[in-house]
């Protein structure tokens, strides 16, 4: 038995399309010396990166020594172990050189327990590339450079890899499978990120301030102002400071005078310029710029800036025309603890806003920020979907909620189009025609078929769309169906109509999934009740009725994805890839609809349907993974062709 055989087998059987590509990927992780395998949402090229530098043979040797529990899989690996002569690797390498895609079959050669779920037969090599693990071997990926470091995701997740691979065959496969998918394997559509809570962010800021302090030898509160001024771009800031120290300090709102400590003083003969109070016992304060005001006024000023205007990093000296920034030391000296807290909060907020790799979770009242290395320029090729600790899933690129598989730009275009079009499009389609000359949309407002376009004054017949002058004066009824001008006009008309219809096709499906997701969500809110009543009716334990919760979450997620597949498809040009995409879309849609149907069954029937629901849930999740992986993969490689420029 040779590797070749395995490869051929994997290509001929389509099962692996449904396979959660657990086996090899995980095993590779075990083989990896990196501690990073504990992270949940790693972006795949990173792990594959360092590993891919190990000679292929090495990988495989280790790869197949720690098989997961599944018996079938063990069998598969036994085959694989036999099939590892070095010569075979050599030949495989050469294939991969000629076709980078051939890698993917390596990582998908496990035999899948869910064979029965694959109705589709092998189609093409292209189709094979839809497997989730395809890219796990591509090492030299540009995304790699975007991921800051391996350490970044250390400790952010505490999931245990050990549990992986268990339970694939038993009844709970539905969710253990699902969870494992999310936790342990990097799919082409997953990006690496970590969630930060406010203390983490503070810590990060402090770290950078200290670092720059050590280099520039300035007090930390001044360095903080400098860094905020430079939008936390350390290198650029240091460079600019080294070249023009005084100008940089001045522009940042700092003087070059760093003498003296922040303290309030009583100055004989002083009159506050703000409140015009005077008196020798008036407590006063001035920053290093020397603009001195009474402490009450200073305090009031700072309070108003922080509380009412939400300002923190750019609060200037109260002096007219003075651009000196109030530093944190002065602030701490003057305002209450509460305001200091608010001040820090605001600083943290601007810090996150300033950093390209940080974004706040947009969920209401969520306090976490996400750290993700995907840059704006990458957004054409990736849809960086992240999941906050608060469970909100959103796009790191545009902060809208999860819109995979459609890229941000298309999403924006689509939403804009929907805003412009959706409400009126239906009505337009039903009640209007377009002027054949200027394409303005015309509503017929009288009985007469002699239409005059208000915009371009073109006169035509409403019935045949032909030029009115060709009708002659004596004919009121249109008998001119065969005339050329009419036929041309009708063709143009049909074109514009069909583009509208095309839009409506996608829009209706998009809107339908949105609506259904809402309804499913309502149902989800009732799920708990359902679960309770199922417990009492069927005698199942709490843990045994969890499948409903899992199913409902899967429904939500799949509908969200489906919804966006329609927006995405609207912009896709027709080709083979698009057909594969539509097949995947159809498979997912069918699965979702049938799960949705089961889910709505009366509580009494639910206990009996448990196995089916579990199966279907798992299947839905798999179909979603397949669809997303396929799309992400093609997006990354720039293989989609679109019917618009973007």
């Amino acid at each position, binding site marked *: 038995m040779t590797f070749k055989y395995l490869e051929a087998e994997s290509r001929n059987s389509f099962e692996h399309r449904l396979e959660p590509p657990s086996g090899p990927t995980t095993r590779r992780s075990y083989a990896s010396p990196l501690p990073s395998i504990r992270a949940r949402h790693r972006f795949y090229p990173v792990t594959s990166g360092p590993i891919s530098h190990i000679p292929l043979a090495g990988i495989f040797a280790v790869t197949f020594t720690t098989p997961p529990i599944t018996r079938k899989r063990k069998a598969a690996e036994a085959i694989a172990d036999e099939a590892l002569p070095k010569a075979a690797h050599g030949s495989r390498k050469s294939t991969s050189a000629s076709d980078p895609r051939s890698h993917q079959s390596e990582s998908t050669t496990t035999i899948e327990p869910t064979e029965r779920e694959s109705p589709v037969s092998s189609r093409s090599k292209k189709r094979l590339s839809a497997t989730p693990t395809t890219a796990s071997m591509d090492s030299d990926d540009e995304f790699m450079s975007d991921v800051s470091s391996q350490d970044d995701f250390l400790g952010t997740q505490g999931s245990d890899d050990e549990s992986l691979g268990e339970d694939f065959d038993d009844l709970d496969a539905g969710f253990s499978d699902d969870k494992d998918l999310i936790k342990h394997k990097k799919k082409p559509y997953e990006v690496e990120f970590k969630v930060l809570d406010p203390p983490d962010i503070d810590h990060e800021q402090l770290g950078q301030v200290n670092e720059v302090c050590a280099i520039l030898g300035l007090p930390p509160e001044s360095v903080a102002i400098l860094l905020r001024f430079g939008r936390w771009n350390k290198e650029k800031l240091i460079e600019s400071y080294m070249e023009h120290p005084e100008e940089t300090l001045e522009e940042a709102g700092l003087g070059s005078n760093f003498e003296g400590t922040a303290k309030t003083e009583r100055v004989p003969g002083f009159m506050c*310029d*703000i*409140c*015009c109070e005077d008196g020798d016992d008036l407590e006063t304060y001035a920053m290093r710029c020397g603009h001195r*005001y009474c402490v009450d006024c200073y305090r009031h000023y700072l309070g108003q800036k922080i509380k009412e205007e939400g300002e923190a990093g750019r609060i200037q000296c*109260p*002096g*007219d025309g003075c651009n000196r920034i109030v530093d944190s030391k002065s602030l701490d000296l003057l305002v209450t603890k509460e305001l200091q807290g608010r001040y820090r909060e605001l600083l943290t907020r601007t810090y996150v806003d300033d950093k390209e790799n940080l974004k706040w979770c947009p969920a209401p009242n969520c306090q976490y920020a996400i750290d993700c290395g995907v840059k704006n320029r990458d957004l054409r090729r990736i849809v960086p979907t992240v999941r906050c600790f608060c469970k909100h899933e959103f796009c790191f690129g545009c902060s809208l909620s999860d819109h995979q598989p459609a890229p941000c730009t298309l999403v924006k275009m689509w939403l804009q189009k929907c805003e412009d079009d959706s409400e009126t499009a239906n009505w337009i389609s039903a009640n209007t025609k377009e002027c054949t000359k200027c394409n303005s949309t015309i509503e017929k407002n009288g009985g007469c078929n002699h239409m005059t376009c208000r915009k371009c004054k073109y006169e035509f017949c409403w019935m045949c769309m032909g030029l009115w002058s060709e009708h002659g004066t004596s004919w009121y009824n249109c008998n001119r169906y065969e005339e050329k001008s009419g036929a041309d006009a009708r063709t143009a008309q049909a074109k514009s109509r069909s583009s509208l219809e095309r839009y409506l096709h996608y829009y209706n499906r998009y809107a339908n999934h949105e609506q259904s997701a809402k309804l499913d969500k309502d149902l989800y809110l009732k799920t708990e009740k359902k679960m309770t009543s199922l417990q009492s009716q069927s005698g199942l334990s709490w843990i045994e009725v969890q499948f409903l919760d899992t199913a409902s979450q899967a429904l939500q997620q799949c509908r969200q994805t489906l919804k966006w597949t329609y927006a995405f498809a609207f912009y896709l040009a027709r080709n083979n890839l698009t057909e594969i995409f539509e097949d995947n879309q159809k498979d997912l849609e069918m699965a979702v609809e049938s799960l949705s149907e089961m889910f709505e069954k009366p509580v009494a029937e639910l206990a009996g349907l448990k196995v089916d629901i579990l199966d279907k849930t798992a299947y839905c999740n798999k179909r979603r993974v397949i669809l997303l992986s396929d799309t992400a993969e093609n997006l990354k490689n720039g293989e989609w062709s679109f019917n618009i420029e973007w």
Partner: protein
Amino acid sequence: MGSIKRISKELTELTESPPEGITVELADESNVYEWKITMEGPEGSPYHNGKFLVKLSLPTEYPFKPPTVSFATKIYHPNVTNDEKGSMCLGMLRADEWKPSSKIAAVLQFARQLLSEPMPDDAVEGRIAEQYKNDRVRYEEVAREWTRKHAC
């Protein structure tokens, strides 16, 4: 806060030594927050010889919040709204630019300066700004006429 003290001080200073072309009084003697200002059109501007009534309102948080300035006399100017409000948009009166140590005298001088040198890039009347930039002669004509009609 000592806002009354500060306001009285500024008022005294302004009435005792008013800036050129500006006279200041309270709209109502019992209310220090509403000021009535008469501004003479500066020489060399199309507003010359006109007397413009300007209202200045101080918020209760003054001087921590900026005053507002509006023209009670109709004026043809890119930076004054051409409506019954006659609001004037001054950069230094924006909440984030205002400093508690800024003075009303400075505001008034700035406003009068604006009559001589409109700032078409910060205009509230886009059409007038356009004209000011492209057809200065016509702008001055209209401004002069409005001054004659409303401010003399």
